[in-house]
């Protein structure tokens, strides 16, 4: 039977919800679900995780106060060996992507990144070519290392009884990296990659003012994140990290509203996994309409204020 080890991500001493999506993915296979928490003074996180797992290995050490890939990889693989894990799971967040390839090497394990569904205990479905194609891959190794696309797995529910929290005897390896600082993005808007609504703008907005006057108020009204086409990022109208597309961020929100975006392949690759796509564009021939669930041929400067207005009446 499979034994799953879930890597817990946490922040400000609170378990991140993305970890619960990783557990949901593991549950598709069945077997024991164990958790592993690394940190310093992280008992509270371990207790929280124990509500979802039958056992939690708590690795509490001052050398683990910051999430650094090199020391973390050693400890996670130590715990994996100790617990006899057959599957290791993490959310495909920046942290999961940074850490798990190193863990896979240490365990001589095949790795599946950013999976969107589970076929069986060794086969998974994951997007390739920025979601242009889908691949079915099989991990041929006894131990399997997997990261999970959070938007594809709903967070799991709590178990009826809490599992045990077991302190793990940490022995740090050598580390050549040190944490210096963290600058949190001070934005009241959700993060682009895990927002449930994304409002994206393109050339049709005519300039940075178009974003200020139309996209930002609409996004704030809907509690949405803001995205943009490559063209407007390259033109410097908006920050580069707003870019949605093959060379930018890949998003899959519940609702994606593309405003003044023509729909170049590059852009579409980054957003076509969205549940519902709305396109507003002046040009009735714009390719974005071919993939939009709802298309409105209209001038953004007229339609968006109307949209904000009618939202405020909801």
């Amino acid at each position, binding site marked *: 039977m499979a034994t799953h080890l879930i890597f817990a991500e946490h922040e400000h001493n609170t378990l991140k919800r993305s970890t619960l999506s990783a557990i949901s993915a593991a549950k598709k296979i069945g077997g024991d679900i164990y958790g592993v928490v690394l940190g310093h003074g992280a008992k509270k996180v371990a207790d929280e995780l124990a509500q979802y797992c039958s056992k939690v290995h708590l690795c509490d050490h001052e050398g683990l106060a910051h999430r650094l890939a090199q020391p973390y990889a050693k400890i996670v693989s130590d715990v994996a060996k100790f617990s006899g894990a057959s599957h290791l799971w993490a959310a495909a967040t920046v942290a999961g992507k940074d850490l798990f390839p190193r863990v896979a090497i240490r365990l001589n394990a095949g790795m599946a990144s950013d999976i969107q569904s589970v076929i069986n205990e060794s086969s998974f479905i994951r997007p390739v070519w920025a979601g242009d194609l889908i691949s079915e891959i099989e991990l041929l190794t006894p131990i399997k290392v997997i990261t999970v696309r959070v938007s594809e797995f709903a967070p799991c529910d709590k178990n009826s009884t809490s599992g045990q929290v077991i302190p793990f005897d940490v022995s740090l390896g050598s580390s050549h990296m040190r944490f210096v*600082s963290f600058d949190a993005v001070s934005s009241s808007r959700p993060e682009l990659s895990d927002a449930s609504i994304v409002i994206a703008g393109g050339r049709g907005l005519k300039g940075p003012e178009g974003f200020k006057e139309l996209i930002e108020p609409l996004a704030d009204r809907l509690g949405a994140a803001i995205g943009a086409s490559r063209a407007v990022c390259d033109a410097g109208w908006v920050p580069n990290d707003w870019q949605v597309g093959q060379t930018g961020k890949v998003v899959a929100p519940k609702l994606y509203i593309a405003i003044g975006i023509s729909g170049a*392949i590059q852009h579409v690759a980054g957003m076509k996994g969205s549940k519902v796509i709305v396109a507003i564009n002046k040009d009735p021939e714009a390719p974005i309409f071919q993939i939009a669930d709802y298309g409105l041929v209209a001038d953004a400067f007229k339609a968006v204020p109307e949209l904000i207005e009618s939202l405020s009446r909801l």
Partner: protein
Amino acid sequence: MKILVTVKRVTDYEAKLKVSLDGSDIIREGVNMIMNPFDEIAVEEALRLQEKHGGEIVVLSIGNKDSETQMRAAMAMGVDRGILVETNLNISQHLDSSFAAKIIHKIIVKEAPDLVLMGKQSIDDDNHQTAEMVAELWGVGQASQANTVTIKGREAIVIREADGGLETLSIDLPCVISADLRLNEPRYAPLPGIMKAKKKPLDFIQLGDLGIEHKQQVKLNRLVHPVSRKSGQRVSSVTELMTKLKNEAKVI
């Protein structure tokens, strides 16, 4: 300072791709190939570091002879020389990330660079694994998804794109850094650079000669096109759009 930078030949992000009949690969005939965009950013960063600190830049690629085109492109940007680990294996099918990482590590042991710069992922397989795997095999520190790189003595100060903000790390050299989108904007190769690139040294090494033991860990069983989206409906007004989003799609 000696920098090793890796480059992968990938399909153009503008290309319309079709899966072959048996689902084992894409149809590659007639598809334009480019340097992986994240690798291009890594090459640019190597050049900028060389401008500040001097030293040599070596570009490394794994693939068939065609990869020479992308390596010459890196040389045209300014890279000094290249190493192509030649293989006719279909990379998507038979060369999993850990195999690629072992190959790169083998070359690292030979070349002993101070820094290895790589793209954070290739835009075909989208694995985002190799750079981190190389760092682990090499037993060094890493900064993935770099936004800013500064070298101070034997230390790299790297600002990286993290969830919800920017994280700054200090890492001992040698180390592995993977490039994210915002790290820089790659230069266009100048015409004299393109001329010079043709004459820069490029070593061909046969994969078999590296003596790497690797049992395939990840197997590609099938490629498919995602269920294509139904071409949706046109709405005639904002009011109609709102009604549909509320009552039909139930997303607001």
